[in-house]
């Protein structure tokens, strides 16, 4: 799950903190497995942003792989 942050200019902000998202460590978990990934999140409150292409692409593949493990 590398290159999750390869989008160009970040134009998503956290509304609560009015902060531009930055890349940070996030832990994703499924079916008893967890792994760290670099994702955009709010530098202040930590709210994590998962874009559509990531959810339907690599994350979906990871889900299927873990389900068949």
């Amino acid at each position: 799950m590398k290159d999750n942050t390869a989008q160009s200019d970040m134009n998503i902000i956290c509304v609560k903190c009015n902060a531009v998202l930055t890349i940070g460590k996030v832990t994703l978990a499924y079916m008893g497995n967890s792994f760290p990934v670099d994702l955009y999140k709010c530098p202040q409150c930590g709210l994590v942003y998962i874009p559509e292409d990531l959810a339907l692409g690599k994350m979906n593949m990871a889900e299927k792989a873990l389900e068949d493990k």
Partner: protein
Amino acid sequence: MDQERLYELESMCIQECPPGCTAGCPVHVDVRGIVTAVRKGDYPAGFAILRKTVPFPGIISRICTEPCKNSCKRNELDESIEVRQLERSCSDKCGSAEQKILLPPLKSQKIAVIGAGLSGLTVAADMAGKGFPVAIFEAGNGIGGSILEFSEEILPRGLMESDFSIFDKLPVEIKLNAAAGKDELSLELISNEYDAVYIGTGYESRTAADSWFSGTPEKRLVIDSGTLLTNIPKVFAGGSLRTGESRTAVDSISDGKIAANSINRFLQNASLTASRGKEGSYNSILYTDISGVKTSPAVKAYETGRGYSEDEARREAERCILCQCLECVKKCEYLANYKAYPKKYVREVYNNLSIVMGIHHANRMINSCALCGLCKELCPNSLDMGEVCIDARRLMVDRGKMPPSTHDFPLRDMAFSNSESFLLSKHQPGMNSSSIVFFPGCQLGATYPSYVKKIYEFLCEKTEGGIGLMLGCCGAPAFWGGQQKLFEDTISGFSERLKSLGNPSVVTACPSCSYMLKLGIPDLKIESLWSYLDRTGLPEISRNGSGRKLAVHDSCVSRYDKDLHESVRSIIRKSGFEVEELPGNREKTTCCGYGGLMIYADREVARRVIGRRINESESDYISYCSMCRDNFASQGKRSYHILDLIFSETDDSSATMKMPGLSQRQESRARLKTSLLRELWGEEVKDELPEVKLTIPERVQSIMEDRMILASDISKVVAYAENTGNRFKNTLTGNYIAYFQPQRVTYWVEYSPDGDSFLIHNTYSHRLEITD
């Protein structure tokens, strides 16, 4: 599934059994392989196949008596395939080519073969090819034995010499004019010198051979028919010495091969009898359907006594049916999808269940089966892949190995139908007992809520003793998903509600409900709405069928429900339509793509299942299961539900009506319950207002269908974002983006405020959890 059960299931699938010709051939020549090679004009490949089984292909291709022909399926149509002529085509073209032999290192054990007939020569070629030095003792002055009696015209000597030239390359010493049996060539002396002896001296020498065995308790030669071991240790015998005057060349070669197998085992101190497999001629149990195969007489060679021309050979090869079974695979898109057949699939399922660490490659295969039972119906041995798959699903659920995403949506949909939003059990308005209860099922309520009300009102008018109403789900998604405990709980919930109504008999309007309820409550008094209406009378309204043909699709769960089949057809006729039978119907009907939840496990296979079914007739279809109808309509097939006929709504809009969306289906069920309570029972029911008001454009609605996201899921995300303030903003579009994880799935929604509602721009979901 334990190993014993696996073997049992595997043995039920006969696809790998040889065709009749190969089984009938004493040495099991791969006739299909030769035919396929000749069709392609690849004679070297055909010849290689023949020589792999027969050490003397030239000879056999001229004088074989073709026992294979007796078991050829074409006999049932016209004439069997001319196998020997095809073998001859291969042999004539390629027999003279240099044969490369790779000999293993020479072994120390030596073998004596007495008699240079075809059986002895076969033993010699076979054993020498394995590296055992062989000495052949032949009384005459040439090798070949009784085949030397054939004329030059039938069996050219040059061909024999060419076949026998193999001995020049093998560690074989041929001793001519060496009559064994007495003096220095006595059997005793030979067997002292050699590690194993084979006697193949021909039927005419039987008396002489018997005399060699005078020192044994039986006082004569006795040959075990399975191993060809005689009553003297390490001495084997076969050929026409054993079979008698009715000998044939191919029988002798077969005996030679059986003896070589035994001698090889004997020299390695292995069991002579353990797992030998099939030897000699036998009847295959392979089933091959020959209906639809066109008759065409066997191709005769242009000139009698000559072989085929290439064109003749190809034409004769084309006549071969290439026998195989595949009865189930031919009719099932799901089974065809994995490019093999149940014998292989059963093994894959077993392996999948046995894996401790590693990838479960067959999960999708196990979960995509419609469990419809067509394969069982078509299989000559009634092997049911559905049973294999449902057992596997249950095991996967028990072990926590069922992929959660596969059945999550239908199971949640079932939970909705069995929640207070839809669940209902009531006596007929104004009555306090029920002789019958109507259970329309959740899918009819989702697609046709208005019909549920109409039909219930009609039933109320005509039923004596009161007809109650029960809404809910029968538990089919749990059953199909392998959730046995959940299924049993659902059934007992149904039983309790039925009991609260005084255990009336049940009338169902969904074949799946009937199936599940009968399965769960074997002594339940149950009847389908269609046979009930056919028996007691349809609503009295004008019928508008005007003789038009409708093709009936029987639902797969009602495969064996003959009464139901008849009632449905009767209603169609009473409605003024003509009944058209699809090619596979009644007990041979196919699934619509929904059964077994296949549509959730593999949408593409389900799409092909639907596609195949709807192309079986040009006529409009009619079904008595709303899922069947909806699936056909989803691919543009004009299809009616039988209720369309009963209420005379057989116009274009009912034939082309698309299946309502997933959110709509749940909403329809909830509204159905509310409106029935209000309108029939006069109860006051509060409307459940959504948490937030949404505006969902059509484009987004189709995204939601594809991704199985409900409006209620979206509503939860927006409400959560608006209540907590946890949301992002896209600075380019100004849209908000937020997520919420109500249960296992995390939903994302892109939205913007739109007056008093929220306009939805996009939505997606994932299952990986964001843990920090």
